[in-house]
Each structure stands twice: as C-alpha cells, then as structure tokens.
C-alpha cells in the first residue's frame, strides 16, 4: 500500500484491492480502516442484515416462479447480489435517494417498496410501481447508465439547498461503458456532488463478460475522474455496508463523490428471457456459489454464539410468508383501464392529446354499441381477429 492510496481526507482508496471483512467461510477479517465503520453491527444487527438478504432472495425466487407461471411478463433476478444491495441500501438515510437500474429489488426492499409496488412494472400493468418521493428511490431505469446522471443532478441540487442528504447511483459493470456514466463521474467531481457511484460488477452484461468493458478493476476508473475508488467484496454484506457508510459520510461532509465497485455475481439468468448456458460454464457458477453472501453470515453468526440454524428457520418462515404475500399481491394487481394510456403524458392540458383521446373514446364506444361482450371495450387485440 502506498501513501497515494489515501486521498486528501485520509480515506483509504483501494481500487486494486479487495476489501473483505467476512470470508466466504464466515471468518471475520480485521481491517483497521473499515472496521470502525461497522463497529455498531452486533449479532442482532448482523442477523437483521441476514434477514433482509434471505427475504429478498426468497422474493426473487417467487417472482421468477410467477414469471414462469405467466403472472409476470419478465423478471430480472438478483440472486447472488443480495449482499451488495442490502449492505449498500442499509447504509442510507431516509432522506437519501437511490437511483437504480432494473435489478435492484434488494434496494427497493430496504426503501420500503411494497410487494405490489415492486411487481407492477414486471407484470406490465404500469410503467412504475411506487411513488419515488414516498420511498426515496427513483423509478427503475432500463436505459443503461442514464440514472447515474439523475443521481448526480439530484445530489447537486441537494447541496445547493444546503441539505446533507446524498444520492446513490446503482449501475452494473456493463453500464460503465455508456458515455452517460463517465459524464456523471465528471459532473459529480466538478460540482463535488454528494453521490455514491455503486457499481455492482456481477461479471456479466447479459452475455458479455466484464473483461470486454474493462481489462482491469472498474474501481480504477474513479481516480481518473478525481474521486476515490473502493473495490469491495460485493458478496460480503459487512464490507459493503462499511464502504457505503464511508462514502455516504464523505458525501455528507461535503467531500464529494465516491466510486464503489462491489465484486459480485449474478447467479441466475440476465432476465427470465435469457439462457445463460449459451455463454458461461457450470464450473464458473459453482465457484461463485461457493462465495454465497448468505451462508457466510450464518457461519459468522454461529461462530459468534448465535443459534444460526434457528435463525435460518425463523427467517425462512418469515420469507415464505413474504413470498406468499408477494404472490397474492401480484395476482391482485388490477389490469389498467384502457384510457389510462393517455394519463400523465403531460401535466398540463394538451389540445392534441385530448383530441386523440376523445377520438379513441369514440372508437372504443363503437364496440360497446355493436358488441356488448367485448370486455373492456377494446378491439379484437393486437393481432386482429373476428370483426
């Protein structure tokens, strides 16, 4: 380690390093720089982090099942990334704001997003499921990288208002290649914005290995843009929590942005529409299964004298209840009203759209008049049919 690894504030930046506080087998590794940031995490708190992870994993499985059963149109599983998401999101304050991509169900869970709110988008009933301002988390972003600029702008605004709230931008390894992400780093550095760039390097961007985006640790990007980069074991919830707390603390103290690379793995397919056997091996999967974020926490708790089997059972039962709730919430999500397609295009009256809506109302009415059975009043559907 050399002195230039410390930035002006004395923060250790470790772009090539790999911060790990809990090994895959559950040993606690001491780290003088990071330990102070999680000194409050006693076994109870660690148990709560385990609970979060176990529940979101269970919800993820349930959502995948719902998709397979036709209740959801699509689902992007988070399995494998629980520690990265829970560890980071549990570092946030209520008045902070998360700007995520599409896979951050664990972050959404921490922000209090409810089961129906979570699934609305994936059921295809609405373009978003929750009110961002009630939850402190933006609507999910599918355009890769775009949200990193939104997080940066939000954070710039926060400082201009004199607030010490901070934003976290969540994005993937693939996203680092989009120009928007680099531009976000530039704006954040220039305006010293209180934003944490939280990159979940899950090794893959659909079928593309991270090596296609960068031949070296992504955390090294940070320095070139003038901010510290921390590379952390993304499957170690404690290390992630510590790193994110460090970064948020810097942000609040007016020291600007931080880049965190959480090295993790997507155990499932990219989405339920993906077939990962086309591009990666069973051996690779096995290797990463050995680095599971949950088992190591159980092992550590067991070591610390907790009845981990009991905890596991208890949480599993709770997770099953949450999954059942998710399922029923999903099925209960009502189909949207046809005319709602015209809602919220504009805030203010818009003559063109109003006319178009009026015409469509009349069009739908022709079915009511001529065919009382046409449910919802719509035509025969996309592909046409009997008239």
């Amino acid at each position, binding site marked *: 380690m050399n002195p230039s690894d410390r930035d002006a504030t004395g923060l250790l930046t470790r772009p090539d390093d790999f911060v790990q506080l809990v090994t895959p087998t559950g040993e606690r590794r001491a780290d003088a720089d990071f330990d102070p940031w999680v000194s409050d995490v006693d076994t109870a708190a660690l148990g709560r982090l385990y609970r979060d992870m176990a529940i979101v994993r269970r919800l993820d499985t349930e959502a995948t099942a719902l998709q397979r059963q036709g209740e959801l149109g699509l689902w992007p599983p988070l399995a494998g990334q629980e520690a990265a998401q829970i560890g980071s999101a549990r570092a946030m304050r209520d008045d902070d704001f998360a700007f995520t991509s599409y896979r951050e169900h664990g972050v959404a869970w921490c922000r209090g997003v409810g089961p129906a709110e979570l699934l609305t988008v994936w059921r295809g009933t609405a373009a978003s499921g929750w009110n961002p301002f009630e939850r402190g988390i933006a609507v999910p972003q599918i355009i890769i990288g775009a949200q990193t600029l939104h997080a940066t*702008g939000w954070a710039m*605004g926060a400082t201009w208002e004199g607030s010490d709230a901070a934003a976290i931008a969540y994005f993937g390894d693939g996203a680092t290649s989009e120009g928007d992400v680099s531009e976000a780093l530039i704006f954040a550095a220039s305006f010293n914005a209180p934003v944490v760039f939280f990159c979940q390097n899950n090794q893959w961007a659909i079928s593309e290995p991270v090596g296609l985006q960068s031949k070296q640790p992504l955390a090294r990007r940070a320095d070139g843009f003038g901010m510290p980069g921390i590379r952390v074991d993304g499957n170690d919830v404690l290390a992630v929590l510590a790193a994110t707390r460090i970064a948020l603390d810097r942000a609040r103290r007016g020291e600007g942005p931080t880049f965190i690379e959480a090295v993790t793995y997507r155990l499932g397919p990219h989405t339920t529409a993906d077939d990962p056997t086309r591009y990666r091996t069973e051996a690779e999967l096995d290797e990463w299964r050995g680095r599971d974020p949950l088992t190591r926490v159980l092992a550590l708790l067991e070591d610390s004298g907790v009845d981990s089997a009991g905890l596991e059972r208890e949480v599993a039962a709770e997770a099953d209840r949450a999954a059942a709730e998710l399922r029923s919430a999903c099925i209960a999500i009502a189909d949207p009203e046809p005319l709602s397609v015209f809602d919220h*295009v504009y805030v203010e009256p818009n*003559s063109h759209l109003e006319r178009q809506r009026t015409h469509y109302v009349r069009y739908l009415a022709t079915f009511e008049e001529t065919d009382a059975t046409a449910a919802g009043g719509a035509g025969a559907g996309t592909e046409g049919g009997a008239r």
Partner: protein
Amino acid sequence: MTTLTLAKSLNAGLRRALADDEKVVLIGEDIGTLGGVFRVTDGLKAEFGPTRVVDSPLSESGIVGTAVGLAYRGFRPVIEIQFDGFIYPAFDQIVSQVAKLHYRSRGTVRLPITIRVPFGGGIGAAEHHSESPEAYFAHTAGLRVIACSNPADAFIMIRQAIASDDPVVFFEPKRRYHVKGEVDEQASLADARPMGVATVVTPGDDVTLVTYGALVQTARDAAIAAEEDGVSIEVIDLRSLAPVDYATVEASVRRTGRLVITHEAGQQGGVGAELAASITERCFEFLEAAPVRVTGHDIPYPPAKLERHQLPDLDRILDGVDRSLGRPNSLSGVEA
C-alpha cells in the same frame, strides 16, 4: 415599454424567472462567466451566483441528465444548448427521460425543464451551427415544442416555458437575436397569450401562410410584397409546434382555402408535413389546392456560401404562394 433586441428580451425574461422562483436554475456551456456565446445569459451569473447560473462541463447528455436529477429534487432547470447541432448527444436523455419520465412515473415525477436551443441558419456559420431539428422533438410525445419569433413574445414565452410543469423545447431564431422590438417588461404571465396559441401576424384573405421562428419576418415581408401584386396573404406565426394550435390555422384555411407552410428544416417529415396532413384531414372540403410546403432541401445544411440556396426566402415563399393559387410558378406545367 422598452425597446429590446430579441436576445436581450430573453435575457430579461430569464432574469425575471430567476428572480421569481429560486428553484429556477440555468445550466449550460459558457453561459456563466461568458454570458453565452450569444450573450443571452449575460450578467445573470454575476447577479444570481454560480449555483443559479451554472457553467457546466462540456457534455450535453450530462447537462440534460443532471437536469432530470435536479427536477427529481424539485428544481426547474433551464438548459442552454449552445447551438442546434449540439443537441443530438443529449437526444437519449431528452427522448427517453425528459419526455417520458412523467408518464413512466405515473405522474409522480414532474419535469419542468426548459431546453433552450438557438436554431436555424442564415448567419454564415460553420457546419452543425445552422440546424433545424424541431421535427425530432415535435414527433416526441411528452415534450412541448415552441419557437419564438420576436422580442415581445420571447420575453413572455421563455417565462411561460419555465413556468410550465411540462418539459419544453424552446427554439430561438438565432439570426433574429439582434432584431429589436417593443417589450412590456411589466407584462404579467397571467394576462399573457398562452404559449400554445398561434398568432395571426398579418391578416389576409387569399392564402394562409404558416411559419415560425426566423421565417415569420420573411413571411411578413412576403405578404407585403404580395399585396402589391394584389394577393392577400394571412401570415400565422405558429409559436407552438407541439401541440399545434389548429383552431387558429383551421379558421384561416377555411376562409382562404389555401395553405402554404414554410420552414428551414428539410421537407421529409418536417413540421410542415404534419401540418399539411392535419389540415387536409380537418379542412379537406375547404381546400382549393393541396397544401404547399416551402422548405429547406433534404440535404445536410450546406456551407455558408450556399446557404441562401437552402433557406426559404421571400422569392421562394412567393413561388409557393403562386403554386397554391395556381398562378404561374416554377412548377407550372410540371406533372405534380
């Protein structure tokens, strides 16, 4: 009333908006210390400080993307895109975020973002400095698109755009920045003509001539010239390109039976195409002739020494009017 150039009138409008609402922030390249390459924001940074009038890094996607984040935080960002041709790097943030996020968030997120764009040719500039990209935005649901043509409108419309809770792409006719006009700096928004409404700038009976931005002046000149020829042209300044104020255009066309549209942008899929199609739908029985379009050619904007061959001018407009009236014109005798 004060006599102001169009640029100074925008400056006055921006100053007022900054003074009236502390959530209004201006962001763009060179808008602070320099006051913008056209000086539209001259003096505003000195007056309101560097967190209200913000010189941004050189990246348009970054400017628009951070504006979206600022809107999430409750700000009303006013962006300057330095020249029309530099808006394209921000296209994704405009089309996928600014235009769609209110819808995508089911109405929870508002995007009161104004994107100011000096547009059009006629100033002898280098490439990418004379574009007319308005049709791209008029085709994008979720945006409002307006264009001012004179100092009085500029002062009001820029404030209306900023006050609007919808995102507005605001086109400024850069070759008219130095045109002077009377501006009522006391004018209140409450009394002002809504920004979505078109204006009949020259009443007339024989042909309806619709345009916007820099060509409004040219169209008025054409109406004067035609007058001498005994042709009465009604000139309409569209002002709003999306949505279009069809009530005003329709009323005119029902009277004249003839429609000529002129804009600098290319013809294929330009704003004139929509206008011609919509007016034909709405006024088919009243039309004496097919709507005529007098536009730039469908070519990349040519070098400065050739731009007069690209830009519709008085003669080309009058030739279009003649086509509409069935008087001798450049296409007389040509099979349509």
